[in-house]
């Protein structure tokens, strides 16, 4: 055992492997920051590299990409209000508001630290608590999953006071959009209006990028056009503007006090992210949204959420990143790939002749120990690299949107096409953009829409599986203590939240 650990140390800390991890982190951050592209895609494309590299080097590269991508998504979420990856959709809510207030650097730093804290904790849980957590995860069947999805939808829909009805309406719209395509249980095609390309449903990436990025571009275009007409009438207002506008970098530093104030939110995100990440199929976006919702409920500055709260950024980003270690738990414990990333890591193991599952750590002790070490120190590399790059990213974030947004949109369209090799995705992107414009104009919150869209397939499957297993009895949904507990928590939280809000008036 000790021998194996020492050999693993040599494997993990060989200069070559460290270099691969660093390259991976850089690639991940860059790809994650481009809307539409994600670390998962890069891992999928680079899978065959495991034929060419030593296992530790290959796993180092893939781990680096994964971790870099997790954080990279928050860069565009904060800088452009466009989540670079689905997991960072919740980060965009407060991160973009923070940027609009002129402090992207604070938000980016908060995202980085909470992301690294969440990720590292999750990796330790994977290493030391994989089996108990995996057994706990298996107790989640269709009944429990449906309760979890319902809980998350309630939490996020009732996020903003005074807009609960709009929130619920948006969640419902998200669910409706997600129902387009093939019925997961009956197999028939529904809501496609005779367009055969829609049979597979709307893909997540184009909907996400369309709603957030394309709608923003259209609004900015409209604004620029209005300003231009204004300017012709009022020539005196014409003045040359510098590339960065009036952004003052020296005023935008994260202080230690501000950092400490986000710690509670970070730990809420870390805990929820680790637990939800271990559930097969639940995913990082769900973890981020639930963490965000809970952090708001438990925050002293509840009202700042949605208006650029650093706590909001920290909770969402910690929740998102804390899934990264624990998502591998079902793979290591039972050989079950619980997420797209876990499936890709599983494929990498298989391509290297290692069968995912409980035997993995006994049959390939050194490589797996090396992977554990890499998982931990990749976070340090991520922290170090990002620390030096963030000032640059915040400057990019403050480049005027008339220059930046077209570039972001071109990248978004290319990224969307690359993600699915599909032209229909580009049309979905544009339609989602138009929908986003209408929703923004009438102040409908976008987060419940996205969460509804993300959880609907799982929630529908869980509901209908529960009803199949319970032979059509709706009472079957209350047959599990975990489910009852989740419903009760949701009810209590919404009640107390409403009461507190009422008292404050």
């Amino acid at each position, binding site marked *: 055992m000790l021998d194996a650990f020492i050999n693993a140390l040599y494997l993990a800390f060989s200069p*070559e492997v460290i*270099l*691969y991890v660093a390259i991976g982190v850089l690639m991940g951050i860059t790809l994650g920051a481009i809307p539409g592209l994600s670390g998962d895609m890069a891992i*999928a494309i680079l*899978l*065959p*590299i495991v*034929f*060419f*590299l*030593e296992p530790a080097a290959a796993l180092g590269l893939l781990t680096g990409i994964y971790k870099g991508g997790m954080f990279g998504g928050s860069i565009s979420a904060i800088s452009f209000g466009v989540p670079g990856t689905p997991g960072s959709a919740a980060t965009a809510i407060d991160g973009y508001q923070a940027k609009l207030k002129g402090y992207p650097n604070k938000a980016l730093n908060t995202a980085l630290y909470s992301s690294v804290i969440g990720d590292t904790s999750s990796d330790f849980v994977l290493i030391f608590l994989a089996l108990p957590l995996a057994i706990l*995860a*298996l*107790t989640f*069947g*269709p*009944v429990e999953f449906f309760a979890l999805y319902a809980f998350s939808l309630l939490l996020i829909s009732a996020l903003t006071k005074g807009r609960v009805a709009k929130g619920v309406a948006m969640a419902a719209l998200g669910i409706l959009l997600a129902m387009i395509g093939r019925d*997961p*249980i*009956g*197999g028939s*095609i529904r809501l496609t209006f005779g367009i*055969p*390309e*829609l*049979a*597979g449903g709307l*893909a997540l990436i184009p909907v996400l990028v369309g709603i957030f990025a394309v709608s923003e571009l259209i609004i900015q275009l409209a604004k620029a056009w209005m300003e231009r007409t204004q300017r012709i009438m009022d020539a005196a207002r014409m003045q040359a503007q510098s590339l960065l506008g009036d952004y003052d970098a020296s005023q935008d530093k994260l202080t230690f006090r501000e950092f400490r104030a986000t710690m509670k939110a970070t730990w809420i995100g870390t805990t929820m992210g680790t637990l939800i990440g271990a559930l*097969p*199929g639940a995913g990082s976006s769900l973890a981020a949204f639930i963490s965000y919702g809970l952090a708001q409920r438990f925050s002293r500055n509840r009202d700042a959420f949605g208006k650029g709260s650093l706590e909001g950024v920290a909770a969402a980003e910690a929740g998102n990143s804390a899934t990264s270690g624990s998502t591998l738990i*079902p793979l290591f414990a*039972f*050989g*079950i*790939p*619980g997420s*797209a990333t876990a*499936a*890709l890591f*599983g*494929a990498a193991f*298989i*391509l*290297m*002749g290692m*069968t995912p*599952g*409980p*035997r993995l750590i006994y049959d390939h002790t050194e490589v797996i120990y090396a992977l554990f070490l890499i998982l931990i120190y990749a976070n340090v590399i991520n922290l170090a690299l990002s620390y030096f790059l963030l000032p640059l990213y915040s400057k990019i974030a403050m480049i005027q949107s008339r220059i930046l947004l077209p570039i972001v949109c071109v990248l978004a369209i290319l990224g969307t096409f690359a993600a*699915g*090799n*599909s032209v*229909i*995705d580009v049309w979905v992107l544009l339609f989602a953009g138009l929908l986003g414009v209408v929703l923004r104009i009438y102040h409908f919150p976008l987060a419940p829409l996205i969460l509804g869209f993300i959880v609907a*397939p799982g929630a529908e*499957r869980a509901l209908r*599986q529960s009803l*199949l*297993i319970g*032979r059509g009895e709706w009472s079957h949904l209350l047959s599990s203590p975990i489910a009852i507990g989740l419903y009760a928590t949701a009810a209590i939280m919404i009640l107390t939240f409403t009461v507190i809000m009422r008292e404050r008036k």
Partner: protein
Amino acid sequence: MILNTSKLKGPAAAIAMTLMALSPIGSASPLGNDPIRLVIPFGPGGGSDITARVLSATAPEFCGPRIDVVSMSGAAGLEAVNFVRNAPANGHTLLVSDYGPVVTSGFVDSVSWNHDDWQPVMNFTEWLPTVYTRPDHPIQSIEDWVAAARANPGTVTFGHAAPLGLVHLPLILFEAETGLENIHVPTSGGGETRSLIMGGHLDLGMTLPASIAAEVASGQLTAIGVFSDERSSVLPDTPTFREAGYEVSLPAWLMVFATRDVPKETIEHLQDCFMEALASPTAIAMSNRINAGITPLNSADSTVLYQATVESIGTILRSIGEIN
């Protein structure tokens, strides 16, 4: 070629890989220098993707141009099928698929092609649908299952991936044969089926042998029976349904398809170089490593298998009223 580069270390290997990809060796190929695309109608990381990558890693040496695996899971796989159907008929765009997106979709979905428009180039392997459960479940054999389903019809819950897919049709066929009734619970795929079975939420499930072989060997799962004529080589102790007295066999396959209008010589060239590549020591080593059980069939034999599958799937779908 792979063996040579695997001796290179680190960045050199990555560079070598790129160079290899850019400079094809056999320029005498009738396929020219444009890359061949193997389009898979599924997401990356699954069995089809992994198997296709063995070909993309070994065949360029024999075929001429570089070979890319392209994943298009859109429209439940139909996007990939239509993409290959609409590509120029020069043998550079091929489909790697099981029978679902080609045979079943050709029957149940509104598509602009029919089954005769597809021409098998080669078959990689046969996949044998296997029924399994957890070891502490009262049902531990085909006989137990039949007895339980007869005693209380419509109570045994059975998890399978997408409806009418290759791990669902055998169940339909078995029920038609025996008159048994089970509760069919579609899942998002093999991973979800397995976690629901291990967590005690479902009774039985169906999957392909390679994905449970390790767990069956270590006693974490019990394989109950295989829907094929002969036992699976990775699950040698698991009986077939035929051995238990039920004439139900519905193996699946993974074929490389070209469209019907690709010239005969091109198909033959592809068949020859693919078969040659898969017979190379590198490919055999890779196949063993990933437990893919690659036993290639040539174009003619694959065509016979394909037509037989079209016949039998059609019969099943007609018998359950899915098509007329």
